[in-house]
């Protein structure tokens, strides 16, 4: 593992996230090739997010050390949305990569469209001589190319455990060195370079479905996002997510904390709570009805869990 310069010039915690404007013009991340200067921008809406202090500290640490931040936590606790929030806070373009079971590490860097090139060569197109026309950069590849042009990016690698075991292992070198060469066109070489303030900020989310290899884990900063443990904190989260009816959310929090005490196969998480409260607020459900768990499908997704929850709350 190469030793890296530390860069504390950029941080997430000094930014007062709640005071940022509701929309911002940020560089459009999807352009390939990445424009060298004057990149076109797009208007991004602010991600409603309330990170706790520990999480902010972990983000700062990952940025300073230039290592990927590996996020774990219950489904629906906001692992993915953190990347959106950080990108918004720092005003950087967000490169996203949602991993599938067939994803390969190389796809993150670039893909080579051999089939199209073959067809083009067949019909005698002149550009088929130029291999560069058929190289498409992937999310991490674009982030590295953007750094070459002197601009920073945030990269999100979502649900890395979905991919094959080789996936994280194949990324080790690129994440370490932050450079890569296109095998099909060796003259294409992308590198972040020496300036630590240009290193892409990488977030990796992980659902504990499968264990990651130790070599990959070693290179990450690890953070486990806990379910908010206090009523007050949950209330803040709901307020951040623009739930206005305070009485309703107080009651809903009470119900959900009670449900989480039960022995359920899948405990309702934050995103379930937000869905549920959002709907109940929209249909103006009377608060007294909440004990009967209306629209329970938004909270609990298994029939046995639903039955148990209804019984438990009825007994009260």
């Amino acid at each position, binding site marked *: 593992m190469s030793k890296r310069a*530390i860069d504390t010039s950029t941080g997430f915690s000094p930014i007062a996230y709640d005071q940022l404007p509701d929309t911002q013009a940020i560089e459009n991340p999807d352009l390939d090739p990445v424009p060298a200067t004057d990149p076109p921008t797009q208007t991004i809406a602010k991600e409603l997010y309330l990170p706790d202090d520990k999480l902010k*500290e972990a983000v700062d*640490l990952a940025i300073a050390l230039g290592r990927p931040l*590996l996020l774990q936590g219950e489904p629906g606790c906001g692992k993915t949305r953190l990347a959106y929030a950080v990108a918004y806070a720092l005003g950087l373009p967000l490169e996203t990569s949602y991993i599938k079971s067939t994803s*390969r590490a190389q796809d993150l860097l670039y893909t080579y469209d051999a089939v199209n090139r073959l067809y083009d060569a067949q019909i005698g197109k002149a550009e088929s001589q130029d291999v560069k026309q058929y190289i498409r950069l992937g999310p991490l590849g674009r982030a590295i190319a953007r750094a070459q042009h002197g601009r920073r990016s945030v990269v999100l690698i979502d649900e890395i455990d979905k991919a094959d075991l080789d996936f994280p292992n194949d990324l080790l070198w690129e994440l370490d060195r932050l450079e890569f060469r296109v095998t099909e066109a060796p003259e294409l070489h992308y590198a972040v370079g020496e300036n630590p303030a240009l290193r892409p900020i990488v977030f990796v989310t992980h659902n504990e479905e*499968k264990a990651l290899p*130790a070599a990959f884990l070693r290179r990450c900063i*690890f953070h486990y996002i806990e379910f908010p443990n206090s009523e007050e904190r949950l209330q803040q989260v709901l307020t951040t997510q623009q739930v206005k009816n305070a009485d309703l959310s107080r009651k809903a929090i009470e119900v959900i904390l009670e449900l989480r005490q039960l022995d359920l196969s899948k405990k309702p998480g934050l995103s379930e709570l937000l869905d549920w409260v959002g709907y109940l607020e929209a249909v103006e459900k009377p608060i007294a009805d909440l004990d009967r768990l209306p629209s329970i499908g938004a909270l609990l997704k298994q029939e046995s869990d639903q039955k148990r929850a209804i019984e438990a709350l009825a007994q009260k």
Partner: protein
Amino acid sequence: MSVTPMLPPFLWQLFERLRRRGFAIGPTDYEALRQALRAGFGWTSREALRDLCNALWAKSRREQETLTALFEQLAPDPDDWQYSLEADDALEGDAPSVTPESPDLEAKAPNKTVPKTESQGGLPSISLADVKVSERPFVFVPQFPLTYREVAQTWRRLRRPVRTGALVELDIESTIARRSRLGVATTVVLQPRRRNMARLLLLVDRQGSMDPFHRFCDEVCTAIQQAGRLEETALYYFHNVPAEGADDQVLEALTGQLFPALDPVLPQIQPLMDGCLYADPALLSPVPLIDVLQSYAAGAAVVLLSDAGAARNRYRISRLLDTIAFMKALRTYTSHYVWLNPLPRRYWLHNTAAQIARHVPMFPLEREGIQQAVNVLRGQQRIIEKPL
């Protein structure tokens, strides 16, 4: 060059203890902590330092628990912590290299209430003021002969890559072959990507003599299931033997021996598939053995996890016979099977396990054992005394 501050000595101690517990951390990780501290992280409080160590060194929740417990044991309480920082400032630049400090075992008791005794019968009273107890003196994290990582790493080697699924990859060879054969520009040939299609059936002995090994076996099975990246992992439980009721008439030829080996009658033993496996570890929901074998065993790798009578150190001919009859049945489905024994090899000497090990590849449930077991499951030849 910037001056490198010395880290408080207890951090080195913490690092060493974590390494002893099998954390995958090395000098670069220690260096990372030093870098982070130099960059200003983790100074605000004891908790902040602990969180920093957690972020850098612990890579799962369980590891974080261990680290937190050890940190609580080793870290001095906040007053001393401040003091030790000043002391380090004084030493700054003195010795940048990391040297193990003398153990700082004086972690003071955070609870300041000191129990007092009252003197009775003229004896001097005892004071506990000088007795130092850490807030969390014990780390309640199980340590097994095999760590999760060791099992996971070994089992990842069990792979059978097969091209399956959607046609997405260009098959260059076939495309060239096709075009040169037909002489015209045809469409390209695509092929699916490779995936690991290895399947595994775990059969775990439960209760009775296996009681002491339940937690250990659970740990091993969980690691295999989570980290194996296999196409399918089925897990079933049994008690003592997976199948029971083999025809013991074959044993009549062996009369007169106290501890008979089955060798003379081995060919006469018929495959046996009568019996029940259980889908749950409490052995409450039975599943017919034959169903499990038909669904999961064909062409799969099969692992039996049992002490094979070694825990009680007994020789039972009926157990041996049932086991061999079951193994014969298993052989009609797959030739890749191993036996893992939670007891070390020296315990197998004079009991059923020794006999079973003569017919079935059996390995102790330890690092080398599982490596050899995976080798056998991958198809490596293993010489056993009397193959079935």
